């Protein structure tokens, strides 16, 4: 970089006598950002509720606020989509920070619905036996107090409950809403942190098995922060490469179609090493969030340790948000780099599919099992991402929608199977469940079959869509690997079914708690979506394919 250019910076600044007020005020399309804004607002209200509403009624207030807010946000999304913002009127809002287009609206809708179901499972208070006459949910009475300490006993006795989880959830959701629609790297990073931090906390506040819960939180937090540091560094490098963090600009620079190159930038701009490393690091950060091998190792531990409602929500919503962001990054920013990132993504997809499926075989804890299965599914979705075609986008969107509902439903069922120590997550305890309570077992079997991708379930439709897109995108090998790994995966889903239906029930086996309408709704919706998307997916496929176009 030449000294003259640097000098010119100051000189222009000096000669610019007129005040800085020339900077015209930012223009924010509040209407189009309403979904996010509503949720954030609700989250803030939630905080105020914590501050001012008396303890007894906080729970109800929080649940009310959360549900209403999410519903409203969803309504807003629908309204926007109906208003054509998903298709014709799709554009960049908020000074280029946020893209309002098909994918964002579709994913925001999915996240919001998942969020509502999440709130339901969070709010479930009938599963655990009452403590001192107070209904309790699956969160610690007082997260700060040491497990088993007097202070905790006191808290339980006083009937405290951690109602903060609801605002935290809302904050997380708001971050997730922004994440897939972020249109510059800074927004991306902020959104990432906004939805990650609350999740870290939520992981730590389990009522039972607190040590595991806290350990999960620590692991999640450290690794998450580690990953986001990489992401940030990647962002920095990309900024260095393109001189801007806005997707459009970077894309232009990548394509070499950038207009009026500032001579000052000529030095670093177009330095592909920066570009490639930066891209790799950002992608890595996103792959961490979706739990792709080799960035997956947090998944099993966190899924197992976190309170099951949190796990369910996290497993569903995080994947949706992260894949949305990944899609936008690869399709909007880096399409010019296809030939660089596709081979890498191929490799990642393959090891993810196989790794997840293979390791899952020998798992003995249902939550860990589902964790590994979620890893395998991340691999399948990656196969669709790699297709780099409109079909690829829509298939991924569809898959995410289908997958998130199955996941929430499955984890909701996990919360029901309990013994003295809380949830009985060890597989051996599930033996003969089909004999004790056929209905619950059958429902869980439906979810498992959907995970396994058996026809007439949403899992099959999604898998087919993704593989089809991949094959059309010329990734036939991925399809074959995917098929093989789903064969392997089938084995452990089947194993659970065998356990539930064909093994004799253990005398000291767990009991199935009768849930409140809340969890019941969550599960019912899960089953319904699973079957509907399996038998008559056309409507949603249309939705997805309409939503399959990014704005740039």
């Amino acid at each position: 970089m030449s000294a003259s250019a640097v000098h010119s910076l100051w000189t222009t600044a000096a000669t610019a006598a007129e005040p800085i007020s020339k900077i015209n005020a930012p223009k924010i399309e509040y209407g189009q950002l309403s979904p996010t804004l509503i949720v954030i607002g609700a989250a803030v209200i939630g905080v105020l509720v914590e501050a001012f509403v008396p303890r007894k009624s906080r729970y109800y207030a929080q649940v009310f606020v959360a549900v209403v807010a999410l519903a409203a946000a969803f309504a807003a999304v629908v309204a926007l989509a109906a208003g054509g913002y998903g298709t014709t009127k799709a554009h960049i809002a908020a000074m280029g920070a946020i893209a309002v287009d098909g994918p964002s609206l579709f994913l925001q809708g999915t996240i919001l619905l998942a969020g509502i179901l999440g709130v339901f499972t969070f709010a479930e208070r009938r599963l655990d036996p009452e403590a001192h006459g107070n209904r309790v949910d699956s969160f610690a009475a007082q997260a700060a107090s040491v497990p088993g300490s007097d202070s905790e006993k006191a808290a339980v006795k006083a009937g405290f409950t951690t109602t903060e989880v609801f605002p935290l959830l809302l904050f997380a959701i708001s971050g997730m809403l922004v994440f897939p629609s972020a249109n510059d790297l800074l927004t991306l990073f902020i959104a990432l942190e906004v939805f990650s931090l609350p999740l870290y906390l939520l992981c730590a506040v389990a009522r039972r098995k607190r040590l595991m819960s806290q350990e999960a939180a620590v692991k999640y937090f450290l690794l998450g922060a580690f990953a986001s540091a990489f992401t940030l560094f990647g962002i920095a490098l990309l900024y260095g490469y393109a001189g801007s963090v806005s997707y459009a600009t970077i894309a232009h620079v990548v394509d070499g179609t950038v207009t009026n190159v500032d001579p000052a930038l000529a030095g670093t701009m177009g330095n592909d090493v920066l570009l490639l490393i930066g891209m790799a690091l950002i992608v890595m950060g996103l792959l961490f969030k979706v739990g792709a091998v080799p960035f997956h190792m947090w998944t099993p531990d966190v899924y197992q340790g976190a309170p099951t409602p949190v796990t369910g929500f996290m497993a569903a919503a995080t994947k949706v948000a992260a894949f949305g962001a990944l899609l936008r990054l690869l399709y909007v920013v880096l399409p010019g780099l296809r030939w660089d990132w596709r081979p890498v993504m191929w490799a990642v997809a393959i090891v993810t599919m196989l790794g997840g499926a293979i390791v899952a075989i020998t798992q003995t804890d249902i939550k860990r099992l589902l964790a590994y299965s979620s890893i395998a599914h991340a691999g399948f979705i990656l196969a669709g991402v790699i297709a780099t075609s409109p079909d690829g986008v829509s298939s991924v969107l569809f898959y995410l929608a289908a997958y998130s509902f199955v996941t929430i439903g499955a984890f909701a069922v996990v919360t029901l199977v309990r013994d003295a120590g809380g949830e009985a997550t060890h597989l051996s305890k599930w033996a003969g469940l089909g004999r004790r309570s056929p209905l619950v077992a059958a429902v869980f079997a439906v979810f498992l079959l959907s995970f396994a991708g058996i026809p007439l379930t949403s899992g099959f439709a999604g898998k087919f869509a993704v593989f089809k897109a991949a094959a059309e995108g010329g990734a036939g090998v991925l399809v074959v690997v995917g098929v093989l790994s789903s064969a392997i995966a089938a084995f452990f889903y089947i194993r659970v079914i065998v356990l539930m239906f064909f093994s004799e029930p253990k005398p000291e086996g767990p009991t199935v708690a009768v849930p409140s309408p809340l969890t019941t709704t969550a599960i019912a919706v899960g089953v319904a979506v699973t079957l509907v998307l399996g038998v008559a997916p056309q409507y949603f496929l249309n939705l997805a394919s309409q939503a399959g176009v990014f704005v740039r």
Partner: protein
Amino acid sequence: MNPVNYLYLAALLFTIGATGVLIRRNAIVVFMCIELMLNACNLTFVAFSRMHGNLDGQIIAFFTMVVAAAEVVVGLAIIVSLFRSRHSASVDDASLMKL
């Protein structure tokens, strides 16, 4: 002085931070190393912003500090609660869940 050197320094810091994460046991120290990595990122932003002659990088640096601060809050909360229940902040002790 050529601002590119700042990039080298940043990369160095980032690597040191990363290495620290990998080798240190105490959760606090690990966390500090992560902060170090974030700082390296900030330095990079600023350096580039200097080189490109636009202010985006510097603004981003401010955002990053805020985020880092938030992270500290959350992080410390978690680590402290872990320490209180285990009387140890060693990340290696926190390995109940494995396999």
